[in-house]
């Protein structure tokens, strides 16, 4: 696997980088959905972020990325990024009985799937809108519960599967069912940069990276290290950030103003704002935090109005102005 492009060297795409960072601070935010055209650096950003995170320590040889128990031998592996290809079977995703061992030794052994490999890392699905519904359902279920339960051949396997789910896709090729949209924590829309200078800079950096990866990585190493420190510090701070009742009330008001049903919206708003507060080193969640994250947290939860030409981002802005006017 070739080295990943440095996260800090990605030109622009602020909202996407921010959403991914917040999800890395608090994986319980529930995944990020990235919609945009081809070649806008969606997969680059995901891989970059994972490469920037510190390696994880696992029990030696663990196929489930479990942390070592006391006295157990351990090894360090990079934060996993697992690609989930379209058309992956359920068996490949959740795991299945190991056929080889069943045939050769007559034993029932569980062969972990992609979910086990993604534990404590990222699960990336390109073209998520083309993925079979039953697989998406399954992924979202596991992502929400943090646990994968498989029953096969009288064998019951239960293992932790906590990962940041990142889906990307091109809306022109078909849309995601609203029920699924709603279950992603954050959503961002990306486009390739409009500004010629930015575009030139993208090409220049990419080319420099492709031609001499080591030198390029060295150049950006300190910026990446800084970002890593930011995420790690925020993770530690997260538990200490308080969410005042007024902020919770604002979350609820915002959801009502946007006509988003269910508690999922409120919960995501609260968690994301808290992650942002932790990133910024603030002791408690403020209106400013909510304002900053509301577009990503709410954009995909609006009921689709085909007559409203304004993008969903504009509608969130309008609701923000209303709710926080006072």
């Amino acid at each position, binding site marked *: 696997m070739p080295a990943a492009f440095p996260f800090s060297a990605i030109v622009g795409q602020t909202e996407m980088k921010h959403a991914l960072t917040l999800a890395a601070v608090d994986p319980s935010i529930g995944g990020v959905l990235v919609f945009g055209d081809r070649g806008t650096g969606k997969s680059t950003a995901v891989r970059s972020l994972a490469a920037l995170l510190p390696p994880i320590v696992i029990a030696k040889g663990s196929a489930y990325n479990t942390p070592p128990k006391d006295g157990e031998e351990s090894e360090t592996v990079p934060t996993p990024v697992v690609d989930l290809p379209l058309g992956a079977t359920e068996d490949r995703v959740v795991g299945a009985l190991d056929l080889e061992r069943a045939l050769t030794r007559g034993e029932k052994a569980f062969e972990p799937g992609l979910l086990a490999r993604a534990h404590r890392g990222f699960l990336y699905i390109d073209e998520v809108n083309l993925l079979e519904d039953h697989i998406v359902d399954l992924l979202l279920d596991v992502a929400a519960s943090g646990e994968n339960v498989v029953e096969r051949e009288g064998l019951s396997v239960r293992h932790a599967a906590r990962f940041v789910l990142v889906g990307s896709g091109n*809306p022109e*090729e078909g849309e995601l069912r609203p029920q699924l949209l709603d279950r992603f924590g954050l959503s961002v829309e990306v486009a390739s940069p409009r500004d010629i200078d930015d575009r*030139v800079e993208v090409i220049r950096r990419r080319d420099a990276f492709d031609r001499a990866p080591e030198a390029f990585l060295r150049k950006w190493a300190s910026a990446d290290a800084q970002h890593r420190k930011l995420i790690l510090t925020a993770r530690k701070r997260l538990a200490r950030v308080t969410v005042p009742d007024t902020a919770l009330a604002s979350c609820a008001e915002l959801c009502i103003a946007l006509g988003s049903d269910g508690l999922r919206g409120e919960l995501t708003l609260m968690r994301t704002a808290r992650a942002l507060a932790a990133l910024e080193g603030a002791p408690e969640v403020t209106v400013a935090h909510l304002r900053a994250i509301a577009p990503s947290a709410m954009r995909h939860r609006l009921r689709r109005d085909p007559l409203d030409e304004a993008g969903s981002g504009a509608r969130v802005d309008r609701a923000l102005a209303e709710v926080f006017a006072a």
Partner: protein
Amino acid sequence: MTPGGAAWADAALAAALLAIDPSLGGACLRVRTGPAQAAWLDLYRRLDPERTVLRLPPGIGDERLFGGLDLAATLASGKPVMTEGLLRSGGARAMILPMAERASAGLAARLAVALDAGCGATLTLLDEGADDAEFAPAALTDRLAFLPRLDAVRMADLTEGVCVEDVRRARALLGRVETPPEAYENFVKVAVTLGILSMRAPLLALAAARAAIALAGETRMNEAAAILAARLVLGPRAKCLPETPPEEDMEEPEEPSAPDDRPDTGEETDPPDPNMGRIPEEILLEAARAAIPPDIIARLLGRQAFAAQSARTSGAGDERKSRAKGRPAGSVRGRLTDGGQLDLVETLRAAAPWQPLRRREGTGDRVIVLSDDFRIKRSKQRTEKVLIFAVDASGSTALSRLAETKGAVELMLGQAYVERQQVALIAFRGTGAEVLLPPTRSLVLTKRRLASLPGGGGTPLAAGLNSALELARSARSRGMTPYLALLTDGKANIALDGAPGRTQAETDVLRLARLVSSEGLAATVIDTGNRPTPAARVLADTMGATYLPLPRADARALAGAMTSALAGG
């Protein structure tokens, strides 16, 4: 040189550049199987002889791609036989994917991941698409530098070009080729002017230019190489004609605003922006322009049709191809109580490998099938609705109520979106009908198409009905349930064959209307006349359709009425 000769010379150069720098990804050859295709593949093989050629079967599955257990061999020998994955087994490979225009989105995504992971392989797509609706998956073509079209190439054009020694020399030189800072800017600007939004295109052009310089035995970027790269890499990707200002291109790249300008008439135009008019870019743009396919607009529309199609066929998993078509439909693990239909063969396949183990534990020597093995066909789980809008865009409607008609369609689209129905759009005006959008679930696409629908001309109602019937039949053959919403004032004046004349036109319309009724196509006629017209009423009765006059300036009431009509029918 003949057009075919020029096309071949460029394609041959592309093969050489790819042999020099495999990071160019590969090529997508758009041509029917034949000597030109064979000659290109042969040339590439000769220029890069170390590469193992690997032809991927079109319907290749995960086990062949990534490796896995060979079930047949395993059962025969009693011990596991693993197959090596084609993507996993290392080494420099030249992958060839025949019938790329039919590759599934899933296969495309997997190959794209393999290309991105830097597996060192190149990919050649053989795009044998017959018409403008069939193209190799964009997820792959976006990653391949060269998109030569070889349909004009004749036998006499197939000349020898570069030889393998040139390629070897160039490879040794490639690492030393310099890239002046302006080169980045040039390629980016030309790409933007051509409406190419993907950031991969200018990168690939840059790499192609470097390979061309190495091929020429130099290490300095020069104009000739840049021109070649613009022509080979950027031209075929153009999303709009370079006459349009770049700012607008960024907004709506898929909708070329210069409708029928032929790009190859060679008419001189000013560069779009005086600040950008520095010499090299103009030249590069000119070079790229020469390579823009003449049928660009049709191609662009085709691409969108393809996009819509791929969304449809591999979409939400609630729709399966009919078994008669022979594509592997796949079945899913499930319980019989779910009301699904048991896929016996798949169930037995799932049970087969476990037999020794189960026999040891259980009793008897019969085949032991457990509920775990049950495989359920997915086709019966849910049938999809497709709502076909046939919109009268003739002069009589255009004058009075086209805008209102569009409004009504938009409202119904909203409803269709909520219910996850697919929609298709047919417009008829002038002398015939046109399918503006094959069945799709993309609201964005439908709204865009609808907004740009022009009005005027005669009322070829018969042609409109005919198109709707055809679309409905093909939707049925794919297991979907079609509904027709016909928006017209019923005043037909163009016959099915395009000839004017009210009498023949009306006869044709009634004949087709009876077909709608006899084929049991559920329909609603929405009268868009200024006041309810008898003709539309008669049409609705003949079709066995619900009749709704379009209420004046009250599209919402109409959408409500339409929804209840559909729900009842």
